[in-house]
């Protein structure tokens, strides 16, 4: 082997070593970059999963739903003694899954349903908290009243003072609906059946104060707008307002039971004020309003000056007003939501004339 071959051999050896090093380094870089990319992707996936996941919900202790059907004792002892009474008690367990989390939280609660059915002679039955019944007539009537007792938890406290009843700013969550407990209490109210007596045990958030709550649907009033609640065996009902948004004008009147719960307190027409409006006139005014064409809510428009203002009052739902404006709008804050509907200037004039004719 001459010196050139030796030189070439040493050069090739050196070159091979360098190539080997390069190869090794490339492999190392590839591995590291692959690992880093994988780790980074995993971090991104975990981050987005964490961001998209709803807040952790703690499941409260077993919830007891007690569904009781009670027919008060009949005042007529003769009839009571002749009736048959059946008592059915059922105990079952419900498993509820939280809808908003991927993690399944299961809570089990015992539902004790007690149904007591009794035939009594009573054409009308009114029930207050103490389950007293006013029975007057002698006709045999089946009376049916339901109540649902649910342990609810205060989820949002916007004020620091006060407890639940009588304090605005305390919200409760019931079956996915949010209700704000108002300070308005009442006793005498017409109730329908429960909003849904077949509802499963809700996945409440155990944050804040636990409440024992019984919710009732106000007769004719949308449960989206308001429900009546008995809280911790309070003798008074408490008004709970939902996060209500009206659709059309007639649906607003319907949801808020305009011709049922409300009465006209005063009417202003220009500088004229009309108060002490009799019941027949009130009914006619409501009929006029309810006969108006159904209109969509007009948002962000100029309403013009008010031509007529009707102040409404309800012992249960509070106060509100309906205004008829010169630009042809009917504007109202009924339902706790300011809304306005374009009726038309001519129609507004006709309505005002009609109402004036009724009240004068």
């Amino acid at each position, binding site marked *: 082997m*001459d010196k*050139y*071959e030796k*030189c*070439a*051999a040493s*050069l*090739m050896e*050196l*070159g091979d070593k*360098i*190539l080997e090093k390069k190869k090794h380094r490339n492999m190392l870089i590839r591995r590291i970059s692959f690992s880093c990319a994988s780790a980074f992707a995993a971090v991104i996936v975990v981050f987005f999963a964490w961001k998209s996941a709803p807040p952790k919900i703690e499941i409260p202790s077993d919830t007891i739903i007690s569904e009781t059907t009670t027919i008060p004792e009949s005042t007529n002892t003769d009839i009571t003694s002749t009736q048959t009474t059946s008592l059915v008690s059922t105990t079952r367990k419900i498993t509820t899954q939280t809808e908003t989390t991927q993690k399944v939280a299961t809570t089990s609660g015992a539902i004790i349903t007690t149904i007591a059915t009794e035939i009594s002679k009573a054409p009308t039955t009114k029930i207050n908290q103490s389950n007293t019944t006013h029975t007057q007539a002698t006709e045999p009537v089946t009376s049916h009243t339901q109540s649902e007792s649910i342990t609810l938890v205060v989820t949002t406290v916007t004020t620091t003072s006060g407890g639940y009843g009588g304090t605005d700013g305390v919200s409760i969550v019931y079956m996915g609906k949010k209700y704000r407990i108002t300070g308005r209490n009442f006793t005498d109210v017409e109730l329908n059946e429960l909003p849904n007596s077949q509802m499963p045990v809700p996945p409440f958030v155990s944050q804040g104060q636990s409440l024992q709550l019984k919710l009732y649907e106000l007769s004719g009033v949308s449960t989206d707008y308001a429900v009546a609640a008995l809280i911790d065996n309070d003798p008074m009902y408490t008004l709970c307002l939902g996060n209500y948004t009206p659709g059309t004008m007639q649906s607003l009147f319907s949801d808020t039971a305009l011709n049922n719960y409300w009465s006209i307190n005063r009417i202003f027409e220009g500088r004229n004020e009309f108060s002490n409006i009799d019941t027949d006139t009130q009914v006619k005014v409501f009929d006029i309003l309810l006969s108006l064409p159904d209109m969509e809510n007009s948002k962000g428009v100029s309403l013009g000056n008010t031509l007529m203002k009707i102040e409404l009052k309800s012992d249960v739902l509070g106060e509100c007003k309906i205004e008829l404006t010169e630009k042809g709008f009917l504007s109202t804050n009924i339902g706790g939501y300011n809304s306005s509907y374009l009726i038309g200037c001519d129609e507004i004039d006709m309505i005002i004339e009609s109402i004036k004719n009724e009240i004068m």
Partner: protein
Amino acid sequence: MDNGASSYLRFLNGDKNGFVDIVKDYKDGLTLFINTIIRDIHISEEAANEVFLKLYLKKPKYKSQYSFKTWLYAIGRNTAINYLKKFKRTDYSNIEDCCYISDEKDIEMDYIKGEQNFLIHQALKALKAEYAQILYLIYFEELSNSEAAEIVGKSPKQISDLIYCAKKSLKAELERRGKDGQI
């Protein structure tokens, strides 16, 4: 296609003997050419080795526009310039340089045939690097003006002028040295 080009093609196709042939054919000439730039036979040899290592590692594409030698010497020139830049920042020990005088002579004796050529090559060392480069390429490597122009990165006209000046300078140097080439 000259011999170097075919050897390089063989090397690119995976035949390592092609690389050995290139080293055999061009190592001394390339080293002496680089020595006209660097003026240090040891570093020139190192630079020449680096040129061959570049060929081995990077396997650059050879364009057949010029001869393989031209292409290789152009790479050698660029490498030599890089070496010059690198060693400008480095101090040398002159005593060490003396040890390589014999090496330089060996290479010259091996590569440059004929007494007269040897004397001329010795005289080239006294010329400016630019003159020495061009005269080495034209007279010892027997390259054409255009090939030499390609290697040193100048136009043919500039090369002609450079050769004229280099010849003049060489003549003066040879006259100064006398018949035996000694000063």
